């Protein structure tokens, strides 16, 4: 045996525990005992015992990886000792502005109310998938239902954070666009008409 120092290696549950480690490190959500048992093709009781072993190994003060039971199941998290380091990892410098693409997308959604990605893409004349994903990630827009019909595209609306960043008490405080008719519907029609004339 090439690893005489690992006491746990002798444990019959070791293989299962290792499988659980694998599952937990790949998961992007907490995994329930049932999820784990099904994936590992093992039974729930053994999974719980193996989780107990892992909880010993991955515990606060002993490892940088900590196994935690949360609502919905089990997940790895960072040790509290590393909170500062993690903070530095996730911290981003304050951004001064938005890209033109982000600004246009945000403006359309703010002025016209919930819109889907295909709609915004049509009006802007370019794909907006990554732009929309970025705005969601920043918390400036959020999903707001789907377009009607089966398989309707997800629609997005602006968030309270958006209002704070732009110093608006509400969407009603957006600067007026009288020369465009001012009404959501009119602006929408105009963008639609322009999009239709645009060469494909």
């Amino acid at each position, binding site marked *: 045996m090439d690893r005489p120092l690992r006491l746990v290696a002798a444990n019959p549950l070791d293989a299962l525990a290792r499988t659980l480690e*694998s599952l937990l*490190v*790949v*998961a*992007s*959500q*907490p995994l329930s005992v049932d999820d784990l048992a099904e994936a590992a093709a093992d039974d729930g009781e053994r999974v719980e015992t193996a989780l107990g072993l892992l909880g010993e190994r991955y515990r606060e003060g002993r490892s940088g990886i900590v196994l*935690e039971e*949360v609502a919905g199941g089990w*997940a*790895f*998290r*960072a040790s509290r000792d590393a*909170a500062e380091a*993690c*903070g530095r990892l*996730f*911290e*981003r*410098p*304050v*951004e*001064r*502005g*938005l890209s*033109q693409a982000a*600004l*246009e997308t*945000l*403006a*359309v959604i*703010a*002025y016209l109310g919930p819109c889907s990605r295909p709609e915004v893409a049509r*009006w*802007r004349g370019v794909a907006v998938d990554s732009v929309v994903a970025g705005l969601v*990630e*920043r*918390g*400036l827009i959020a999903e707001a239902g789907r377009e009607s019909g089966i398989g309707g595209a997800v629609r997005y609306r602006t968030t309270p954070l958006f209002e704070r*960043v*732009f*110093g*608006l008490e509400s969407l009603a*405080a*957006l*600067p*007026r*666009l009288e*020369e*465009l008719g001012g009404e959501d519907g009119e*602006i929408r029609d*105009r*963008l639609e008409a*322009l999009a239709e*004339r*645009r*060469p494909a």
Partner: protein
Amino acid sequence: MSVRELELDLDAFEGPFDLLLTLVLREEVPLVEVDVAGIVIAFVERLAEREELDLDACGEFLVLVASLLELKARSLFGDEDGELEELAPEEAAEELARRLEEYRRIKEAALWLAERLAGERDRFFRLGPAPLAPPVERRLAPQDPALLAAAVRALAAEPPQVSLKHLELRFPPVTQFLERFRALLKRRSRFDFDSEVEGLSRIEQAVAFLALLDLCRSGEISIDQVRPFAPIRVAREETGRSEEKEAPWTVRSA
């Protein structure tokens, strides 16, 4: 289907496409004599026999035939204006060989990637954020709402007139040059092609040359060139009609 095995039955060549490419690269078959349209027709016929459209074969064919055409075009037209890259026919052949090799390598690279992917099938990793990761905060400095209004106004503005200039890049009809040359040949029995098309665009010159080939085929003229890239001399074929002989072709066009 393999494009390279495409059987050809052309005037200048009979055999597989692959072999034709070899012979062209070795300069054993003059490309000028190869009927590229014939190759295209043979390929399209082969394609039509199949029920399914093999896009990969079509892609490969297009790359090969485009290289061949480019090579042929280069050997047909001199490059006095330097508009084309300055490649001699043999350099162009080298270029064709290089492209074929690059194309093959990209296919090999794709194969390598496919094998790699298969080998990594048992490597799982997390996509996206960890379940209990600290929330990522992208902080944005306060923004001016006027920017939003400006963005919508810009989107709703009439787009600038798009230039349609490239649409004018049309091929003039061959008949235009046929008529022109026939008219010219009524006045003179010989002319110098290069001076006749001087000042025309490259495309017009190309079409003029096609007209020339057409007249040659119908036996109305004979074409003579002392050596590659020398001026092309055109002479009216005397078909019994008695017209007074003019001075040799050195007469310049009006």
